[in-house]
């Protein structure tokens, strides 16, 4: 029997380049903020779900060294590593542990410290992913020119550039729509004290002036490589009554995670039948199932704010369609009309989103944190100016084929 579960506390570390802390301290910053926010003591936490990608921060098994920093010593702990969805999957794991009746209070924390790796951002980590394939391709006769061309297209940004091109062809939107979305992310981030790239009053024209990295992707479109950590604390309905008393909480109403077939050339240069990166069947399925579980019939009407995992601006447009907020190929019209602005009719990523702050492991969890804060009314300067009854947190990752969705609400599901 599935139990009702609520998020009773949220915590984030300040995101950005954090050479003032080591990884354990960074994680601890988010954890202790969440414990304080929940108004509980570390003894109340029964189990820990932690999430991080190996290699992205220069340490392969960071969970081995920080248990004592977050009060996890001598307690059940599990680690998740699913690429971009790390934070989303870790949030799901923590939820499952409480929903299943296994534990009453679980802490889920997820992080990345990109500045600890010598290569810029996640390159080292992505090489871990791609190196087997690349070396195999060298063996079957790839030349240095092709190798250089592949490097030119870039790892994650490269895949996303193809995806942006697919999306443009599919929807008829233009690069200036990407500029608008990126500018909105920078503006919203300026209101968020935990965000990385802040640019108050940033306009689409400002973004349009930035260098074209690889068409259709400008420098101003690309997310930063941040350091950061995000944390939520889950409690069962009984524990909420005991621990949270009158404090606002965010109830988890529905979760779902689906994978699609691997896009791009598959493992070891094998073919794949996914011929449109912007199709994202996994996102469509995840949303459908999560809404069904949450009892949501019309997402556009019943959901008040969405935190979408969009490191690149076309993804905010693409996923907002896949998650059922807009019809296929029309999200850019909503952006033109200002519907997705913080004070718009359907705000998307009021926190500034992944486009402004991307500490990979943290990013998925941060969407959950931000959705919960909007419901609790604790999002401070970037709180949307309307009643938030339901919010959606989405994460995306893997070889562009994993998606996780969490629907949060102000009331438990009955």
């Amino acid at each position, binding site marked *: 029997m599935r139990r009702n579960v609520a998020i009773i506390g949220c915590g984030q570390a300040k995101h950005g380049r954090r050479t003032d802390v080591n990884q354990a301290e960074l994680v601890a910053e988010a954890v202790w903020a969440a414990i304080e926010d929940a108004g509980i003591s570390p003894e109340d936490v029964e189990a820990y779900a932690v999430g991080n990608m190996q290699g992205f921060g220069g340490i392969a098994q960071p969970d081995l060294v920080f248990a004592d920093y977050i009060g996890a010593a001598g307690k059940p702990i599990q680690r998740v590593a699913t690429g971009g969805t790390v934070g989303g999957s870790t949030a799901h794991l923590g939820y499952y542990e409480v929903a299943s009746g296994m534990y009453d209070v679980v802490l889920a924390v997820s992080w990345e410290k990109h500045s600890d790796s010598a290569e810029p951002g996640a390159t080292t980590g992505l090489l871990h992913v791609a190196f087997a394939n690349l070396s195999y*391709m060298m063996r079957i006769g790839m030349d240095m020119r092709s190798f250089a061309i592949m490097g030119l297209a870039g790892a994650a940004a490269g895949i996303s550039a193809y995806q942006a091109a697919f999306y443009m062809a599919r929807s008829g939107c233009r690069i200036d729509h990407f500029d608008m979305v990126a500018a909105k992310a920078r503006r919203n981030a300026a209101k968020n004290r935990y965000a990385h790239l802040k640019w108050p009053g940033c306009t689409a024209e400002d973004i349009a002036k930035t260098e074209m990295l690889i068409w259709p992707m400008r420098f101003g479109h690309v997310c930063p490589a941040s350091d950061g950590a995000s944390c939520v604390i889950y409690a069962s309905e009984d524990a909420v009554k005991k621990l949270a008393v009158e404090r606002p909480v965010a109830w988890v109403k529905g979760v779902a995670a689906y994978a699609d077939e691997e896009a791009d050339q598959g493992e070891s240069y094998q073919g*794949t039948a996914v*011929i449109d990166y912007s199709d994202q069947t996994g996102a469509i399925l995840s949303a459908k199932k999560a809404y069904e579980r949450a009892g949501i019939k019309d997402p556009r009407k019943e959901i008040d704010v969405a935190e979408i995992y969009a490191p690149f601006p076309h993804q905010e447009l693409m996923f907002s369609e896949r998650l059922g907020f807009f019809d296929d190929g029309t999200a850019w019209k909503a952006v033109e009309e200002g519907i997705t602005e913080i004070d718009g009719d359907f705000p998307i990523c009021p926190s500034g989103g992944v486009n402004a702050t991307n500490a990979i492991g943290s990013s998925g969890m941060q969407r959950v944190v931000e959705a919960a804060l909007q419901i609790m009314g604790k999002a401070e300067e970037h709180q949307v100016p309307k009643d938030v009854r339901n919010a959606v947190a989405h994460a995306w990752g893997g070889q562009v084929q994993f998606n996780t969705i969490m629907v949060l609400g102000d009331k438990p599901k009955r």
Partner: protein
Amino acid sequence: MGLIKEKYEKTMQVEGEWNVGAYRWKAPAGYLDEFVRNFRDRKITGTLCKECGRVYVPPREICARCFTEITEKVEVSQYGEVLAFLVSPPLQKGKVIIAGIDAVEAGFLKEGERVILAMVRFEGTSSSMVLPLLNVEPGKVRVGMKVKAVWAEECKGVLADLLGVKPAYDVRFE
């Protein structure tokens, strides 16, 4: 808590390189080897799933949807269409460093050239390949444009034999 951050302003960096040993992977020999061997005869071959009719290029041993082993091999068309593409800025020295090598200085890429990479679906296949799009100005490229394979002058049966694709029909500049 007695955190280090209260004692030191910055985290420490240790310079140096460590050889942490080698990785070993299992990669599919056989049908992919055959795929590139056929490049010697300028043939593009894929595998056909008899359950769902999908044709995979590059070939695939097991259909990802049907989970059945694919034994049928098929030759596919040299013609295809562009599904999506991206365009690099004019390349400069010092901008494309891969594994410590400046690709422009080393001569793998030409100074000032603009690389167009396309996702190409060859006719009769259900999959796509990333290939350079040659002999065309970036401004002339369109999604859905017809392209054909371009081969090296002398094909040796290696991946590099397939240089890329070019427009299937002459583009008139008028």
